């Protein structure tokens, strides 16, 4: 019926992520997260400041790609509007922070507001399928700049708002602190998602995606599952948006353009739809590919190329990955191991 479902059906392999290893020993997600945390902390001591900043950006992207891959990959709802949900989180954080200068409070308010926004959009989305759902979420993504310029008293139009932040503790360099903050949030988000999708909620999500009628017969409340999936995913996007506001110390509509929403979908497809590891690869690519494109553009010396090359590179990578590994980057290890086993 829908493009999403076809995609999801064509790629049944990577469903597992770190949640449901088939008949293999189950590694508890918490262990993976702890290992990840140790790795990130170690990395922040090795990397130079700018790389730490990029690492922090990967962490922030990881939040939103993880949430989106659960929504799109596991529940089959395509959202082109996650950029707007990030903007919601970012602006809420900025406004709260500028009023009270209390970061934990601002994060809490940002999460609350995106939960509400996600519920509202999710309620509408649960009634729509396929291209109509894509259309609705697309409209949400497009409306952001207009909202900021219509209510310019509050949102200050294209210029956006700056975010007042207390400096990090003296002994910690700014960039390392940013990386810790972003990855702390990202790992918590991913842990929660991993725990959610390995249990009953995850089974419901997949059942609804694969066959709504069958799911209904099995006693699953379709609409509630879909709205819940959207809300969970929206909260992840809100956290990511708040992190971007902290990283940039400013928010502006230019930071959340339509291309961001499209890039997010591309990233999770390239990474491997429905897989949390795939979401990680997607987040890495979202930071790496534009940097790569920029350095290529600089070497060729063409100014016009520099600003536009990232779009081309992303498209090419998507095509290549879909041809070579339809399950995305996250499916490559299992494909290789299967090849080896077959050759034995």
């Amino acid at each position, binding site marked *: 019926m829908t493009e999403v479902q076809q995609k999801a059906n064509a790629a049944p392999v990577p469903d597992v992520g770190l949640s449901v290893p088939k008949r293999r*020993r189950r590694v508890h997600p918490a262990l993976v997260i702890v*290992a990840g945390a140790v790795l990130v902390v170690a990395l922040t001591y090795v990397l130079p400041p*700018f790389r730490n900043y990029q690492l922090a950006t990967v962490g922030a992207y990881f939040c939103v790609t993880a949430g989106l891959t659960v929504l799109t990959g596991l529940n089959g709802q395509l959202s082109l509007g996650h950029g707007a949900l990030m903007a919601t989180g970012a602006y809420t954080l900025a406004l709260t922070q500028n009023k009270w200068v209390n970061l934990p409070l601002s994060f809490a308010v940002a999460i609350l507001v995106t939960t509400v926004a996600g519920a509202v959009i999710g309620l509408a989305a649960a009634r729509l399928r396929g291209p109509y759902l894509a259309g609705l979420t697309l409209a949400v993504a497009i409306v952001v700049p207009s909202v900021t310029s219509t209510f310019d008293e509050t949102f200050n*139009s294209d210029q956006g708002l*700056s975010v007042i932040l207390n400096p990090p503790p003296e002994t910690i360099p700014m*960039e390392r602190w940013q990386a810790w903050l972003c990855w702390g949030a990202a790992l918590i988000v991913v842990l929660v998602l991993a725990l959610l999708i390995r249990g009953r909620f995850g089974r419901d999500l997949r059942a609804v995606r694969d066959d709504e009628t069958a799911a209904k017969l099995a006693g699953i409340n379709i609409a509630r599952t879909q709205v819940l999936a959207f809300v969970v995913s929206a909260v992840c996007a809100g956290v990511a948006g708040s992190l971007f506001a902290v990283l940039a*110390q400013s928010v502006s509509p230019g930071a959340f353009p339509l291309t961001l929403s499209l890039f997010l979908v591309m990233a999770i497809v390239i990474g491997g739809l429905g897989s949390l590891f795939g979401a990680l690869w997607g987040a890495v690519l979202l930071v790496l590919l534009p940097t790569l494109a920029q350095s290529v553009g600089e070497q060729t010396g063409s100014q016009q190329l520099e600003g536009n090359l990232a779009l081309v590179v992303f498209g090419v990578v998507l095509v290549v990955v879909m041809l070579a590994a339809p399950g995305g980057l996250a499916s490559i290890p299992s494909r290789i191991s299967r090849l080896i086993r077959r050759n034995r």
Partner: protein
Amino acid sequence: MKRTATAALAVVLLATAGCTSDSDGGGSSSASVPGVTDTEIVVGTHMPLTGPAAAGYSKIAPATKAYFDYVNANGGVHGRKISYKVKDDGYNPANTQTVVRELVLQDKVFAILNGLGTPTHTGVLDFLKTNRVPDLFVASGSRSWNQPDKYPGTFGFNPDYTVEGKILGTYVKENLAGKKACFLGQDDDFGRDSLVGIEKILGPVAAKESYVTSNPNVGPQMGALKAAGCEVVLLATVPGFTALSIGTAAKIAFKPQFVVSNVGADPTTVGKTLGAAAPLMEGLVAANYLPLNNDDTNPWIQLFKKVNAAHNGNAEFDNNVVYGMSVGYLFVQALQAAGKDLTRDKIVEAVQKNGFQGPGLVPLRFSAQDHSGYGGEQLTKIQGGKAVYFGTPYTTDDKDAPVAPYSGQAATPPQNGVPAP
């Protein structure tokens, strides 16, 4: 899974082993100045090479670079060659964040020079302050650059938009008295500061509208101004939107007298955007504070044209090229004044000491208490497709000082085109 875990553990161990040596090496580099060696000075900038503000503005950085190449070919500054790293931010504040971090943290530039744009540069002020990076000659007229207590390393270049608004307002008051004056401006500090200056002179305008660069349509705004019966429209717009406003007005048979901010008034850029409709610009009033590109008798233009031919691939010589080279000239003056033992503190001191004689028609205002750039402008009018100066230059401030004629002599460039130490 076991293998993955072992691999991950190995990476962690290696990483922690690496970091012990790293943290020792990082801290002790206070003796050397970032971006400065005995033979080179690295400076960086962020510019809209693509995106909504690229028209015209994308030519500024290449022109500045060309002037640096000219200086380098003449022996450099105190034996050092200037290397200019230009990053594209597409006039998007989010991109500016990334590219400026890359310049400061990765490329280790000595200073950020002439970063362009009010919305874009506003977002990096705090970052540059935290990292103690000199932030010289910002390419915008926002009053935000003039906060010496809050941002001690940030200096403007353009006359601020309030000063400009007062001068444009004075023109309207003296020459178009009794006509209904209205305003269209960018929906940020640029438009707001400009309106403040205009209203200081004219009182409240009859109608005011705003636009955002992300929405290239000013139809509703021009329609509203026409409906309000405006006879004079003051524009605080970037070049693309100046062209859009003039074109849109002509389409709905609305023919007011346009009075345009300097940053949006380069006739070459606006004319190119208007294409066949370029004659619509005839009679447009604007202001400038640097020699005009078509004034071949001016010694600065002669120098800049020579540099443009030798080092800028003979790019079309418009006011953006003049602007870019003037910025380059001022930076070299500041470097010369800062002396051979260049540090970040010394260049800030040198700029505050001021005393720079350059291509500007009016003096720069720099001092310890004032970090804003040029202090005035002279009016221009487009006649026969060419902008020409008329009247005398005016100076004023962003408060309540009167708009006063300025009668100082213009400086001439040194023989070899490189400021003396």
